[in-house]
């Protein structure tokens, strides 16, 4: 590919070549000749701009980014994307104010420019300095306009940026403040699968902070559908989002009203262990309310949860024990669990400390007997 682009038909280039040819001496064979090859060196990428040496690399790229010519901008962006993997260069880029120039390029008409700009932003978001810089310079609101971009890869990179940013508490706050939750929930219904995974990740981190906007946008209906999606990753992440929603009080009520608890109980028997973990976690939060508990008992949640606890290597043990503790506070739950008390006894010797503690608490709750009301006051 690189060789095809070299065009030796150029007059001046031929003159240079001929000059060097005349100067060559035929030494003994076996030693390298001083003839200059007609081909370019193999690692020069003509699609990338030439980088200046050392400290000048990034300032020169910045000037090239603002050049009105399209090709220069594209080549500068390609070189930038490769440079930004280095943390030092990323720091320098933030300090030089690259984020503002990239922000203006986000609304360019050419799709390659947009794609490369979003890729550069997503690479920058992989670094901590980059994330802080992105939050400070308000790139989030600028990226909000790209949610409807016709090109798939632009949207994917945009969602990757949001995903990376939302893993920070300040980033999650920024995404919430930019009012991105309702559009994201809407996109969840229509987007491609891998972008849906990114959206679900972003939502899970943002909804840990605040949940009212998502509930108003009707997130629960969408999430309930996703619980029965064929892809395991999407089921997993949807269960995680439900977990985060039900850790809030209004979320718990909404989850119970939506009737998501029977769906979650069905997911407890899923083939993927990750899905089991997350659905057990979502249940553990959702059944704190009395209505949640009754609906869980109605959906017969105890047998699958006990199966998860009994499995020695399951990662869902901790969540399942917590969920069973909640169910043991109901009288009918307690009576059922009294028969399975030895399962919890076995968990007391678990290698994980958290599981041991949870098993102790569960046994204490199961053994609790009602006492006189006089003792309460």
């Amino acid at each position: 590919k690189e060789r095809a682009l070299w065009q030796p038909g150029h007059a001046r280039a031929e003159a240079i070549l001929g000059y060097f040819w005349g100067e060559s001496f035929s030494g003994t064979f076996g030693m390298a000749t001083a003839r200059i090859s007609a081909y370019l060196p193999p690692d020069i990428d003509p699609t990338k701009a030439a980088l200046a040496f050392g400290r000048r690399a990034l300032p020169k790229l910045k000037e090239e980014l603002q050049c009105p010519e399209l090709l220069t901008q594209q080549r500068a962006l390609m070189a930038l994307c490769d440079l930004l993997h280095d943390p030092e260069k990323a720091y320098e880029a933030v300090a030089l104010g690259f984020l503002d120039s990239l922000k203006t390029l986000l609304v360019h008409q050419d799709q390659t420019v947009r794609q490369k700009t979003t890729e550069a932003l997503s690479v920058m978001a992989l670094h901590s300095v980059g994330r802080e810089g992105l939050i400070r310079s308000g790139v989030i609101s600028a990226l909000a306009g790209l949610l409807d971009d016709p090109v798939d890869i632009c949207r994917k990179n945009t969602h990757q940026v949001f995903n990376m940013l939302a893993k920070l508490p300040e980033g999650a706050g920024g995404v919430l403040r930019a009012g991105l939750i309702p559009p994201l929930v809407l996109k969840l219904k229509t987007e491609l699968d891998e972008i849906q995974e990114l959206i679900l990740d972003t939502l899970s981190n943002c909804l840990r902070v605040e949940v009212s906007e998502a509930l108003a946008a009707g997130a629960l209906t969408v999430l309930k559908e996703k619980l029965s999606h064929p892809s395991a990753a999407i089921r997993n992440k949807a269960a995680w989002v439900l977990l985060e929603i039900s850790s809030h009080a209004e979320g718990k009520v909404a989850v119970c009203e939506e009737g998501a608890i029977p769906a979650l109980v069905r997911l407890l028997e899923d083939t993927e262990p990750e899905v089991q973990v997350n659905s057990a976690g979502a249940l553990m939060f959702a059944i704190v309310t009395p209505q949640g508990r009754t609906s869980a008992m109605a959906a017969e949640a105890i047998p699958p949860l006990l199966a998860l606890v009994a499995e020695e290597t399951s990662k869902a043990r901790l969540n399942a024990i917590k969920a069973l503790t909640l169910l043991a506070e109901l009288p009918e739950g307690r009576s059922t669990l009294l028969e399975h008390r030895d399962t919890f006894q076995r968990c007391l010797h678990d290698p994980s400390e958290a599981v041991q503690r949870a098993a102790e608490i569960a046994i204490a709750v199961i053994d609790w007997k009602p006492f006189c009301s006089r003792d309460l006051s």
Partner: protein
Amino acid sequence: MVPARAPELTAPADLPYSFCSQPRSLSSRPKYRKQSNAAETEKVPLHRCNIMIDPRVVRGNVLCVRHPPESTEPSTREVKRQRRAQKQGLARKLTQEQIRTGTPEPVEGRQHVSVQTELYLEEISDRVIEVDGECQTDEFLDRPPTPLFIPAKTGKDVATQIEEGELFDFDIEVKPILEVLVGKTVEQALLEVMEEEELAQLWSHQRAFAELRNAEFAELQRLEEQDRRIREEKERRRLEHLEKLHKQKETAEKIAARAFAQRYLADLIPSVFNNLHDSGFFYDPIERDIETEFLPWLMSEVEETLQKKVLGRMMLDSLIRTVVEKRLDEFSHPPPPDQTETPAEEPRTTDAAPQVSDEADAADQPVEEEETDQPVEEEETDQPVDEE
């Protein structure tokens, strides 16, 4: 991706290399440096030097000693003096050399011979062999290329050639180079892989922490819920208890009030009956009947009878009065001519008189007891009955 374009005249930045400036011929340097003005330096230098008459180019015999051309620096007095001194010293050296011998005398049996050490030896003689020759190229013939001057070789040629394996052992020497090359490549690759792995590690760390945090949070919420339930239950029971106390108090009051009322009203009935009895509500009907009807009637009858008696007495009184008055009149007045009218008047007057007298009696006795009215009325009712 990059659109193919025609190569431009100016060399693009990624060609191997090119001269920065175009080749140009030099100008002659004047002996004295002029004061450089901006205007003058912009002008094209007027005198380009001809390479044939440039004193800096060496011409002629290259084997004789030649001094460098005069320098173009402004020759000051000290420089001139220095040059003169140099020349004098040189002349002195030459004369002294002719007196002194250069090299020491040779050892016995030997003699010094001057030898040429160049690759190609040349015969040196005092007189230079000069041969004049002339040639003229044909006008239309191109000058053939000058043949390469290779003087005849005398002496022995010695050559040397480095065979493979003599300078260095490739396999051993290439190792560090390869190590650096491969190492750098691998390092770069590892950096890129590590970047992703680092992130994956961070996320898995975060996930583990998030799981623990969620478990603790769930426990917290469970305890909160439990606490809330217990508090609500306590509150409800407390309210119930208050309710109970309140009701108890009310009932006690009710009982007390009922007992008091009972006791208060215990002798209500007898007293009521007594009062009623005293006020005459319980009566014997016959007795009442007798009292209300019979006795009044009796009394009225008695009164009537008495009245009649009184009436009779009054009538008698009135009769007596009239008679007396009449007699008085008669005795005082002469007797009226018409005595027949008097008997007619008399019944009339007698009719009117008792009525008049009754009326007069009624008028005279208005303050009298009501019973007199009754008997009067009864008399009135009785009288027409009587009269009829």
